[in-house]
């Protein structure tokens, strides 16, 4: 039996069971869960498609020699340059993961590609403009977000350059493009990347919807008054909510009982570590990579928020 048979069978069963589904999805919690799950998937999809197309284009149309010339050979320099280059990709975190992998496949050092992955969703112009709209009259919040996110990306990149190991990445699951014509290679690469990343995006959506419904917001009020706890609480909230980086500033601004530094942590952690993103990273680079990269990034992002927030926002 091929997977096409399985698919056909599944489709038939589900369509026949449709009358039962309506009753199953009547409760408030279940309905809210389903709506949030669909919303996270639908909202992320255009960005994922954009990222997959860009990644395929990098893999097929940009010669590897381009990146060898564009980036310094020494990783100490390549990491900050790649971090700043993140400012040009106007997408959210779902695009940057496949693009970073496309860069690695083109010979860019992992540390530099990861710095790009972390900075792109956080410091691009769309996100910074959204932040300035969400915090009107407070340009220092925009500056703090830019600096703290860039600092996070560069420091994590440097740490990775020093301690990262190649065998933490799962063996490149790239389709064999040898012998294909360019557009054929583009099509095969794009479909392959999308099917992989898409499956993991769904895992992220399931997790985000579940946590969104299961974690009571009243927990937050209890910790809002403590400086240290409040920063950690909003950093943790950013991880579980998995809000698109273009929207998180508005959510941060609405958490009125928290300090500006705590809101900064929410906006610095969110685009770099959240449940949807970790699932995407695990699917793209492998689990062994994700269980090291995500905690490292979380710690550095929280520290960067304390440092920059303490300097600019207090």
């Amino acid at each position, binding site marked *: 039996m091929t997977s096409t048979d399985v698919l056909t069978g599944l489709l038939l069963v589900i369509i026949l069971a449709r009358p039962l589904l309506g009753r199953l*999805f009547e409760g408030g919690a279940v309905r809210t869960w*389903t709506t949030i799950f669909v919303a996270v998937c639908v909202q992320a*999809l255009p960005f994922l498609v954009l990222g997959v197309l860009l990644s395929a284009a990098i893999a097929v149309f940009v010669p590897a020699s381009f990146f060898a010339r564009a980036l310094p050979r020494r990783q100490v320099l390549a990491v900050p340059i790649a971090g700043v280059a993140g400012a040009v990709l106007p997408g959210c975190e779902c695009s940057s993961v496949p693009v970073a992998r496309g860069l690695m496949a083109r010979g860019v050092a992992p540390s530099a590609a990861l710095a790009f992955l972390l900075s792109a969703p956080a410091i691009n112009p769309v996100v910074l403009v959204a932040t300035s709209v969400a915090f*009107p009259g407070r340009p220092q919040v925009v500056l703090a977000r830019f600096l703290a996110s860039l600092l996070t990306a560069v420091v994590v990149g440097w740490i990775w350059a020093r301690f990262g190991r190649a065998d933490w990445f799962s063996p490149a699951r790239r389709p064999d493009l040898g012998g294909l014509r360019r557009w054929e290679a583009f099509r095969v690469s794009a479909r392959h990347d999308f099917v*992989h990343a*898409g499956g993991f995006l*769904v895992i992220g959506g399931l997790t985000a919807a579940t946590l969104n419904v299961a974690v009571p917001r009243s927990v937050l009020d209890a910790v809002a008054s403590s400086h240290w706890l409040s920063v950690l609480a909003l950093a943790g909230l950013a991880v579980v909510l998995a809000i698109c980086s273009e929207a998180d500033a508005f959510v941060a601004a609405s958490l009125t009982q928290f300090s500006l530094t705590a809101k900064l942590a929410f906006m610095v952690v969110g685009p770099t570590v959240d449940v949807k993103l970790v699932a995407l990273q695990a699917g793209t680079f492998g689990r062994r990579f994700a269980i090291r990269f995500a905690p490292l990034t979380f710690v550095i992002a929280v520290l960067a928020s304390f440092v920059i927030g303490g300097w600019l926002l207090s």
Partner: protein
Amino acid sequence: MNRDTQSVLLVLLGGAVVRISVDDTYLRYVRSWTRPYLLTAGAVLIVLGLASLWREHLARRSAGATPAAPPAPVGPAAPIGPIGSIDPAVPAAAADHDGHDHGHGPRVAWLLLLPIFAIFLVAPPALGSYAAGRGGNNIAKPADNSSFAALPDGDPVTTTLADYATRAIWDQGRSLQGRHVRLVGFVSPRPGGGYYITRLVITCCAADARPIKIAVQGQAGQFPTDSWIEVTGSYGGMDPGTKTEQIPIIRADSVNQVKTPSEPYES
């Protein structure tokens, strides 16, 4: 999962996204500005899936035509499956061969069926009173709260719940005084009796929804939870019944049930 199945999934997912974006269904999940991006992304997925199905169909035909190709395995021994297995030119092993998958990679791709099913079969509604009950009224301080512009002309003047609540909380209701206001929202229960007229505000998608609640008093009447209503009335101060969140009151002259608006969220 073989390549044809992957391609079919792409077409179905692209179709699901296009399906919710051609009418107003997508507004239950995301903001209206996303429509062109959703339509484009959906179209890309459909084209990618169809092109893949077509190219691989051609590749199989040419492979079947060359004399060196392995003999087709279809015969008495082949299982008679449903539609999908009418595929005489492809040996089963070749169909599932993806070279790099080692049998575990794309299994996760089956999960793509979940959003497809959720959209086509469940079509979950916009968030309502359940979601609203989980968050408090947190109205962000506006940029410059020294000068609230007067409400536009109109009697009653229709405004958003966000605008009403912002004026009530950060302008102490001054710019609402003496005005006759019309609000549209859904009913959510008020602890301790009565109900709130409620609206959820989203920035990007329903995952970032924040509620705005305004207590309806006066000629409030009774309406089922989650039904959509329009309230006309005037500013009635802040609700003393809630300690943890600031909830303004609208003193209703009349409340009517209305149709669910096509854009269920405020922004």
